[in-house]
Every structure is written in structure tokens, then in C-alpha cells.
């Protein structure tokens, strides 16, 4: 990208000139890049510092400040940890719903499966069945049940959940739009039901000489769920990173979140990410261009699901328990609202939405409820009616700001000429306004953040 290519002459002097020119151009290029991305760089730096410092010093410095000056509560360690958990999930759902445009209303199923992966692999639960296995863990040898270290659970959870994502996806992804949403909803309801109901399994299978017979086996702990689950201990060079509670748990969550963001960003800009975009905008056209739509959608489902697996197993380890009641349909909707609120299709939007909504749900509303309760105990507690507020948010967002508060740049570019210019200026490309076609990418259907692959014409097609 350097202007020095013009100076390339012949012979050794030409080469030296070329190299010298290139080297001389680096600082100015860097400055240009910094100038163009200054806003992002500064924002990211501040964000990074806040995120790194907050869990450790937040309470000492800010708690007093929040008590005296700023009347709203600050998220404590538990809330902060849940912020990271939900942010990981929001990123995962954003891959399915935002990148690939597939509305998944049963995302909680993958979260539940992830949590139960941790519950099965790191608890005394299976000791009752006589299955005892301690593997590389921090639980002493001879302990009842299966005990596997945290990082291994993560890997297993990712694989298992991605497999379930693919299993669900395989038969259902031929469906479009709203039908897919309903099928995933059904799946999201069935999975927790299985975890709830498989508390006394009687099962016998005869395959020739092999007879498998189980009588009244408590597979999932039923309504009580499974506890205790081993806390997330992570050994690093002989030192044990104890992320059971407190700021360490927040840091572990942030670490997982950082990996999730990195993976999602790379996916977005990869070949598969572009294929998702193509499918989202126009599935038929994408197929014509040689995109294997079924395989691409399946990948979106499996990869998106694996994020929920990470979040679920981390949550189960963190809480030390896993109960089926936690994995309600409302969790799916909560994560969906996070994605929509932040700006569907945008990773940072999903993270922001998750942080904001988790804070609202677990910190702000209980606080307001407590305050109201102090003043007038007869008034309703907003924390009990949180989904009333979320429902209103959903309706209002769809009507007034479907692209979310932090819309993805590409999406905004597709929406307006103004946005296109902004986007290209950011990328350092000059835009000649005369040549800008108002709908260059043929996006008649992108009027909303719902990212449907279908045009309004198609929606009317019967």
C-alpha cells in the first residue's frame, strides 16, 4: 500500500530505494492508521483498563464513590461473572442469529447441555452408580464420582454442545425463518425437560450377547439437579488459579469472553463468515454462487452453540450446582434481547447488550425493588416483573430501532448512503458520492435488524 512502488527502478539501487521508501513510509502509515482508528483505539484501551482493573479494585475505590456520589449500585463479583457468562452466550447467539440470520429461540438448550457436561464430569453424582474416575484433577484420588479438571470440561462441553447443535441443525435447517424459530423453541423446551425427568431411568437393551440393563437410575438428579460440582480450579505452573468466587472468577470469565470475542471476530471475517452473510442476505443467490448453504448453516448452528456450552459449563462450575429449572425459555429470550439491544450482527453490540441487560437484571432492578420496598412495601417490586420490562423493550426495539444501539457497520452501510460513506472513510477508502448507488448491495429487505434472509416479497408469497 505504499506510494514507493513508483520509485522501483532497475538494479540494486532500485531495490534499496524501494526498501528504504517502504521503511520510511511505515511511521506515517502507522500514524494514518492510528488517526483513522483513533476513536476505536482509545475506546478499546479505556475499556481494557476498566475491565482489567474493575474486578480487583472496583470495590475499594468505587463502592464508596457509588454510595456517596453515584446512587446506583455497581455490579459485584457475582453480577460481573454473570455478565461475562451472558456475554459469551450473546456472542454465540449473535453468530447464529446475527451472522447467519437464523433465529434460534431454543438457545438455552445448549447452555443447559454445557452446564450438565460440567455436572456429569466434575461431581460426585455418578459415584452412586459406582463410576469413579479422578483424572488430572484437584480432587484427591479415591473420591467418589467423576472428577475432571475444568479446562478439560470446557473442551468436552464445546465438542458435545457443538455436536448437539449439528444434530438439531441437520433436520431443521431446511426450514426457513419463523418455522425454524419454533422448532428451536421446541428443542429448547425439550432438553431441560429431559434433564428434569431423567431422575429415575429404567432401561434395558439386549443386543445379542450384550445386555444393558439399568433399573431406577438417577441420571440427571431430577428437580434437585446435581451438586456439588467441582469449582473451576486451574493450575498454572504449579500455582492454582482458584476461580471459585471473587475477582478471580470475574477474571476467568473475562478470559473466556476475550477468547470468545477473538474467535467470533475471526469467524466473522473468514470465508465461512462471508458465506453466512451471503446466506443471510439471500439464500438462493448464495446457493447459486456456490455456497453450500446447508453445511454453512450447520456450522453456524454448531459453532454458535459451542459458545453456550462454554458459558453453561463455566456457570455450573462457578455456581457449583446445575438445576434444570434454571434453564427456562426466558433465558433464550433474555440472550436474544441482549443481541437485539446491542445491535444484531455486531460482536461488541452483543457484549454491550449482555453487560447492560445482566446489570439491569441482577443489580439495578433488585436495587430499585429494594428501594421501593423500603419506601412503600405495597408497591410492586420491579425485579419480580423484570420480563414485563424486557417485553416492552423487545416491542419498542422492533418498532423504533431494530438495528440496535450499536449496529454493525456493514449493516448500517447497507442501510444508508451516509452510513456507507462513514464505513468506507473508516476503512480509509475515498468515496465518490456520485458513484454511490443507494442500494448497492440490493438490500431492500435490510430495513430491520432481524436479519431475515427473506425479502418482504417473499414474506408475502403464498
Amino acid at each position: 500500500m505504499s506510494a514507493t512502488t513508483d520509485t522501483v527502478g532497475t538494479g540494486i539501487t532500485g531495490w534499496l530505494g524501494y526498501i528504504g521508501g517502504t521503511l520510511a513510509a511505515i511511521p506515517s502509515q502507522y500514524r494514518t492508521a492510528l488517526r483513522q482508528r483513533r476513536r476505536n483505539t482509545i475506546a478499546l484501551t479505556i475499556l481494557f483498563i476498566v475491565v482489567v482493573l474493575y474486578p480487583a479494585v472496583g470495590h475499594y475505590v468505587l463502592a464508596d464513590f457509588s454510595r456517596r456520589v453515584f446512587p446506583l449500585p455497581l455490579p459485584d463479583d457475582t453480577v460481573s461473572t454473570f455478565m461475562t457468562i451472558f456475554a459469551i452466550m450473546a456472542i454465540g447467539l449473535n453468530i447464529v442469529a446475527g451472522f447467519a440470520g437464523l433465529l434460534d429461540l431454543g438457545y438455552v438448550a445448549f447452555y443447559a447441555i454445557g452446564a450438565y457436561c460440567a455436572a456429569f464430569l466434575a461431581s460426585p453424582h455418578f459415584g452412586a452408580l459406582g463410576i469413579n474416575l479422578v483424572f488430572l484433577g484437584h480432587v484427591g484420588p479415591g473420591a467418589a464420582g467423576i472428577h475432571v479438571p475444568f479446562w478439560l470440561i470446557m473442551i468436552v462441553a464445546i465438542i458435545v454442545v457443538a455436536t448437539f447443535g449439528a444434530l438439531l441443525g441437520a433436520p431443521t435447517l431446511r426450514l426457513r425463518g419463523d418455522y425454524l424459530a419454533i422448532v428451536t423453541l421446541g428443542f429448547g423446551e425439550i432438553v431441560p425437560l429431559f434433564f428434569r425427568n431423567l431422575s429415575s431411568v429404567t432401561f434395558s437393551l439386549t443386543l445379542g450377547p450384550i445386555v444393558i440393563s439399568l433399573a431406577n437410575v438417577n441420571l440427571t438428579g431430577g428437580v434437585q439437579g446435581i451438586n456439588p460440582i467441582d469449582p473451576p480450579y486451574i493450575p498454572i505452573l504449579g500455582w492454582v488459579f482458584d476461580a471459585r468466587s471473587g475477582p478471580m472468577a470475574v477474571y476467568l470469565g473475562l478470559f473466556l469472553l476475550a477468547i470468545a470475542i477473538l474467535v467470533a471476530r475471526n469467524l466473522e471475517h473468514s470465508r465461512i463468515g462471508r458465506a453466512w452473510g451471503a446466506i443471510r442476505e439471500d439464500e438462493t443467490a448464495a446457493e447459486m454462487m456456490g455456497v453450500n448453504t446447508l453445511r454453512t448453516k450447520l456450522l453456524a448452528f454448531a459453532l454458535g452453540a459451542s459458545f453456550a456450552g462454554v458459558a453453561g459449563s463455566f456457570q455450573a462450575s462457578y455456581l457449583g450446582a446445575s438445576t434444570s429449572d434454571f434453564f427456562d425459555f426466558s433465558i433464550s429470550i433474555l440472550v436474544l434481547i441482549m443481541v437485539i439491544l446491542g445491535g444484531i450482527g455486531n460482536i461488541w453490540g452483543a457484549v454491550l447488550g449482555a453487560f447492560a441487560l445482566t446489570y439491569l437484571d441482577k443489580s439495578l432492578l433488585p436495587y430499585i425493588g429494594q428501594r421501593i420496598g423500603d419506601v412503600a412495601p405495597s408497591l410492586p417490586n420491579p425485579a419480580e416483573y423484570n420480563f414485563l420490562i424486557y417485553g416492552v423493550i423487545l416491542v419498542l426495539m422492533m418498532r423504533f430501532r431494530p438495528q440496535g444501539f450499536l449496529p454493525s457497520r456493514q449493516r448500517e452501510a447497507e442501510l444508508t448512503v451516509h452510513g456507507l460513506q462513514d464505513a468506507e472513510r473508516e476503512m480509509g477508502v475515498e468515496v465518490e458520492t456520485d458513484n454511490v448507488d443507494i442500494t448497492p448491495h440490493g438490500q431492500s429487505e435490510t430495513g430491520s435488524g432481524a436479519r431475515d434472509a427473506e425479502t418482504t416479497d417473499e414474506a408475502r408469497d403464498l
Partner: protein
Amino acid sequence: MDQLIQVLIIGLANGLIFALVALGYTLVYGIIELINFAHGDVFMLGSMLAYFLIAPISSGGWGIFPITVDTPLPLKIAEILAVLAICMAAMATLNVTIERVAYRPLRNAPKLAPLISAIGMSYVLQNIGLVWGSAYQRTIDSVFPPTNLLEPFGITSVAITPSQVFVGILTIPLLIALSLFVNRTRQGRAMRATAQDPDTAGLMGVDVNRTIAITFLIGGGLAGAAGVAQLLYNDYTQYTLGFRFGLNSFTAAVLGGIGNLQGAVLGALVIGEINALSDFYLSPNWTQAIVFGVLIGILVFKPTGLLGQQLADRA
């Protein structure tokens, strides 16, 4: 055998209530291709309203129509009709309002935008039910005596109760009336035309917005009637009822072929029987999973449903 017949009778009564709700789903989907997620909660609010109208003041209701087992029959019928009229009118109004507020502004948005809006609306209504009726189950004393109507005929092994007959008397005329309305009246023809092609229907002089509003009006009215039937048949209501009934009824609508009125009724009867059979022979814990299994199975293998027409690009 008698046991099976008994279970099937229970399933039939369940299915008839599902049918009223399922028709609301199928009417709306047929005309604007929206899964009206909030419909189940409209039904729930209908039963909640019926509860407050009927329940005596001593148990937290308004006691306006205090129907009990001992109420003389003509008065009982009059009171039930009054409750029915109020609930149907209220839920019809509510449903039209929802369409106006949450769906009409999104008429030209991508298909998933109104669906998400409907999910939001569902939560709003559910929480209104929670605020209004509190979190626990609201029960009334049974309005109908637990007698067996087959006893005079010398059958004692199988029972049909007055409440089951009531469900039949309530729902079947409504189903017939709806069928006549859609197939025989001018407005019904406008509905069918709009369902086929709203733009062309508009060009032919059909007021599309008004037709859609009327569809929601009818759907809401049926949901209100279903709410009354649910309360008087099962004697309870709760704010979570909408989600469960809604999904059962939606499954019924899909099973019958969404957009198809006869299909919705047929599907509802099948789902009602599946519910009853599973409750009785398997375990109530698994019923919901089985209904969802049916839903997924149909959508995956036969998205047009049992009686559905060819839906080109629908699924």
C-alpha cells in the same frame, strides 16, 4: 377399554378448548404469516378475567357473576353467557389493540421482526397476568356437579360430566359460526382474499388493514371464549397458562396445516388426545416433551400439516 374411552373423552374436551385457541393462531398466520406468540397469553388473560368475574369477593375476585354448583340452571346459563360475552369482547379488543400497537407498524419489515415483537408482547401480557392474578394458581369452586350423565342410560364404567358437555356446547357452535363467517359472508371472502394476496386484494377494493384487524378481533374473541371454557372446565387459571396452552394450540394449528381452519380443529383434537393419553399412560412430566416432539416432527417432515395446502416457499 373403558379406561381408554374415558381418557379419550377427557382428551376430546381438552382438544375442543385447544381448537378455539388454535383457530386464533391459524387465522392470523393464514392472513399475515405471523406466529402470533402473544395469542396464548390473550387466552390466559381471558381466563383470568373470567376468574375475577366469577370468583367471590372472599377469595379475591369481584364476585359480579357468582356462579356456584347450586345456582339454578336458567340463571347459571344467563350468567355464563354474560361472562362469555364480556370475556370475548374484552379479549377481542385487546387482540386488535395488540395488532395495532405491535404488529401493524412492522407490516413491511422482515418477517422475523413482528415475530420478535410478538414474543415481547407475550411477555408483557404474561406479566400483566402475573401482576393481576399473582403468581399462584387461582382456583374456583366447580360450577358443574360431578355427576355422570351416562348413568341414566345404565353406563357407569365411562363417565361424561356436565362440564365436558358444557365445553362441547360452548365450542362447537363457535366453530360452526366461524366456518360460516369465513365461507359465507362478504367479510369472510375479504379475509380469504387477503390471505391469498394482500396487495391484489387491496387493489380489488378490500380494506386490508380493516380485514386484518377483524381477523385479530375474531381470534381474540375465540381466545376469550377458550379462556372461559378453560376456567369452568378445569376450575383454575394461572399466568403461566398462556405459554403452555399457546404452544399446544400452535402445535395443533401446525399439525392440521397452518392457515387451514378445519385443519386447526382436527389438529387440536389430535393434540388434546395426545395430551390425555400421555398424561394418563406415560406421565404428565413427559406430555410437554411429547407435544414438542410432535411439533418438531411435523415441521421437519411434513410442514404442510395434515390438511395443509401446498405452501410453496413457506417452510
